[in-house]
């Protein structure tokens, strides 16, 4: 076998190895986004559980029915990021409504259950923020790969599109004071 043929074979092998490596890198980035997305699901579920408990406490003290005071939240499996954003926004609205109610019902505001749940919210919020940041970090890495040459060629051949960030809701961007 002549030297030019050997060189050609080596070049082809290197290109094949690179193609496999780049493809795997993209696939791993997609898996990481999916893992981080399920982390958001876990955090949203925890937040929903705390919210439900708080709504029960509010109902006991104010005698208001939950359904008349709060937005209905439905967490399902396989929600898109936009749907998760929307359900998270509804939870924000409900938490705000609880705080407004607590201002009008001093016995609620001073109850041990309510205060304990307020502290739980802080930890739950931190977990949700962590899940959001991790998800967005993985989305950023993936989206950067999609626009970086030559990996972008592989991505477009696979029909891959940029992933959507899990945005902080506009309401949550304002500081919300929780008085303990």
């Amino acid at each position, binding site marked *: 076998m002549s030297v030019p043929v050997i060189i050609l074979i080596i070049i082809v092998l290197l290109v094949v190895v690179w193609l496999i490596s780049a493809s795997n890198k993209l696939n791993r980035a997609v898996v990481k986004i999916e893992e981080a997305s399920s982390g958001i699901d876990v955090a949203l579920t925890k937040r929903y559980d705390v919210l439900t408990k708080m709504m029960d406490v509010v109902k006991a003290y104010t005698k208001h029915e939950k359904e008349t005071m709060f937005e209905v939240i439905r967490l399902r499996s396989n929600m898109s990021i936009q749907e998760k954003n929307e359900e998270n926004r509804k939870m924000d609205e409900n938490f705000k409504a609880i705080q407004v109610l607590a201002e009008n019902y001093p016995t609620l505001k001073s109850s041990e259950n309510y205060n304990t*749940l307020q*502290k739980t919210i802080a930890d739950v919020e931190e977990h949700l923020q962590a899940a959001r*940041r*991790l998800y967005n970090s993985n989305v950023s890495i993936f989206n950067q790969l999609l626009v970086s040459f030559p990996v972008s060629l592989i991505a477009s051949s696979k029909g891959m599109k940029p992933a959507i960030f899990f945005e902080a809701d506009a309401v949550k961007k304002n500081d919300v004071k929780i008085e303990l």
Partner: protein
Amino acid sequence: MQQELESLRKAIRKKFWITFAVCLVAAIVILFAGMAIGILRNGTNAAIYLVLALIAVYVIPTMAVGGQKTQFKNMFKNSVVKSVLEDIFTDLVYDPNVGLKRADVSEVDFLYTGDRFSSDDYIEGTYKGVRVIQSDLHIERQDEHVDSKGHTRTKYVTLFKGKWMIFEFNKSISSKIQIIQKGFKAQRGAVSRLLNSQSKVEMEDTDFNKRFAVYCPNAHDAFYVLTPALMEKIKEYETSQDGKMIFAIVGNRLHVGVDNGRNDLEVSTSSKVDVEGMKNSIREQLELVLEVVNVLNLDNDLYKKGV
């Protein structure tokens, strides 16, 4: 207390110099006697004798005051150091002759505890409601090399000399987080870190990533603990201190190691005893410990309570 310490210090100095003078005179007399009887007229013999004499003239007085120096050190630590610690910490436990053991720090996987591990000045107490343990730590690695004549020479290389602190942390996680400043010497070798490469976590703060490497098997826990605010505070703390650092969160304990090359809370007999000056110096040395609680807000128990 100042008078007692100063009296003891003067007695040590006096004994040292008297013993030194006696040894020096004896060495000179032996030198002349040796020359007179011919033993030390030979250049080689004289050189060997001079070296041995110089060593003896220093070593003998040092050994003579050794016991009193230990007494001076213990008196200083049990009175001056302890009084400063009692002002700062509640529920204080202090033992200057005891330190951390390897087992106390071995839960920090990426810390290499070396071939020689020594520790002293064990302090345990509560500051602003946070339980704190700290100790001076010295880790060394044994290096052997064989010279051209086939002799094996052993030397010890310092990997870590400074302060090791363990705090009660205000968040609890199931996995370990290890945050190692780039250039920290006492970390496990490349192979060990490579085996854990899958657990390296890139945070969204690029400046933080340039200064520190974060390892955690669960990336969510890393993002949960290392909030943007905490990363800023870690950078702030690192900027305020000398030496490379390691942070590790294991369960509800935060380990902080600062390799500043110092063994704190020590005293010398060469300068006059000034108790107030010494206390101020001790307070400054302890700032390194207290700043961790203050800067990282470890006294914030918001995340510890709840359902």
